[in-house]
């Protein structure tokens, strides 16, 4: 499973990001991550346009797993409850990114 996560926007307009290849992390963490993804209902969430909320952080989340691939663009305060644990985990793993 490959995960690309980016947090953009917010008042400061800065970027935080992380890319995770589950094959390259220890088994317990991989299992916990896969459980977070499956438990979030991510694959069934609509990829529609998020609400426009000034200075709210925006999340871009793309997951590729085998044949499946799905991406979401979310407004931070509107993240569904079932997705929050996964977003929280990915945000904690993220690091500030210097814009090119």
């Amino acid at each position, binding site marked *: 499973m490959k995960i690309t996560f980016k947090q953009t926007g*917010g*008042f*400061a*307009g800065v*970027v935080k990001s992380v890319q995770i290849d589950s094959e390259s992390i220890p088994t317990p963490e991989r299992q916990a991550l896969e459980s977070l993804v499956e438990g979030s209902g991510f694959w069934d969430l609509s990829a529609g346009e998020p609400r*426009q909320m*000034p*200075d709210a952080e925006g999340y*871009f989340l793309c997951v590729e797993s085998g044949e499946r691939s799905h991406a979401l663009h979310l407004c931070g305060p509107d993240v569904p409850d079932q997705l929050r644990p996964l977003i929280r985990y990915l945000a904690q793993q993220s690091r500030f990114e210097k*814009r090119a």
Partner: protein
Amino acid sequence: MSSGGVVAGTARVRGAGSWADHRHPVQCIVPPYMLEAIIASGSEAQRRAALEVLRRSDLLRQQRALAQAQPRLDLESMAPSVDAHSSRRVRRTYDARHGDSLPGVLARGESDGPTGDPAVDEAHDGAGATWDLYWQEYKRNSLDDRGKIIDQTVHYGERFDNAFWNGEQMVYGDGDGEIFARFTIDVDIIAHELTHGVTQYEANLRYWYQSGALNESFSDVFASLVKQRLLGQEAAQADWLIGAGVLLGDQYALRSLKAPGTAYVHHPALGTDPQPATMDGYRELPAWDDNGGVHINSGIPNHAFYLAAMELGGQAWRKAGLIWYRALCNELDANANFLRAAQATVRVARAEFGAGSVEERAVTKAWPGVKVL
């Protein structure tokens, strides 16, 4: 501008989130100018009727607000105004206690003294300074120009590196303490967020691509003006920085209207300020990335305002700020782009100050300075 009355009639229709969405369906509005005309020139009976309309409108609005308020609100402080030309600033600052439930617990009401919690007191005072600019300089009665109670929540989340406007209130985090301080530390951040509320009730600029960058820019412009007015500065004395305190490190700020791209340079975590000063540096970004770069490309209209304000000199909120305010309220729509904003500000300058005036020339010169015109 005074509040509208609660009688059958029609309301000026602006964009979603503006007047059209904020009228109760059975409370159509007699336009304020009609009420004012009646109060100014009507018979005694007509004056009393118009004033009563305003009093009932104010009372209904404040009763609705009370119904949503914490029980310990001082009802005495919510007394409605009966003078059509007065306004009353009402601020409520809440504490989310590091959770994400809004608004949280009421920490400071309008008539409460300082609490000793810097975030609460900064939010309260900053909202006051912002309300004061809009009322004292532009006769705007709060965010909606109808006396909307200013609600703010501090201590949102844990180490939350952000502040935002959610359509109804402002929300501030405490920052992580390593890269960012608390987001109430700069009065311009508070004024920036409140101005998103003003924009929502006026042009309601769509928050993406160029209209979103304009939305951001109006917030930065009036943020800077609130700060300058609080400090008693003229344009040439101002630092024109946004977020000089929140980004930890004396040499860093988040944005500069004077010199976009220089607010922070070689920051160990963030790199260098990516804002362009002119269209030569305009960034085409996808929607998922900062809604198409609204915090990046705002540097261009920000710099246009700086150029106009510096050309005019003096206190920037008086002329340049007035022109920008009128453009936001009367000229722009939700899908405005930089070119239309430029044309609108030139039109307003001409209308307010005259064709060929110093003011029109200053604005006309500012936009080519950022290569929009």
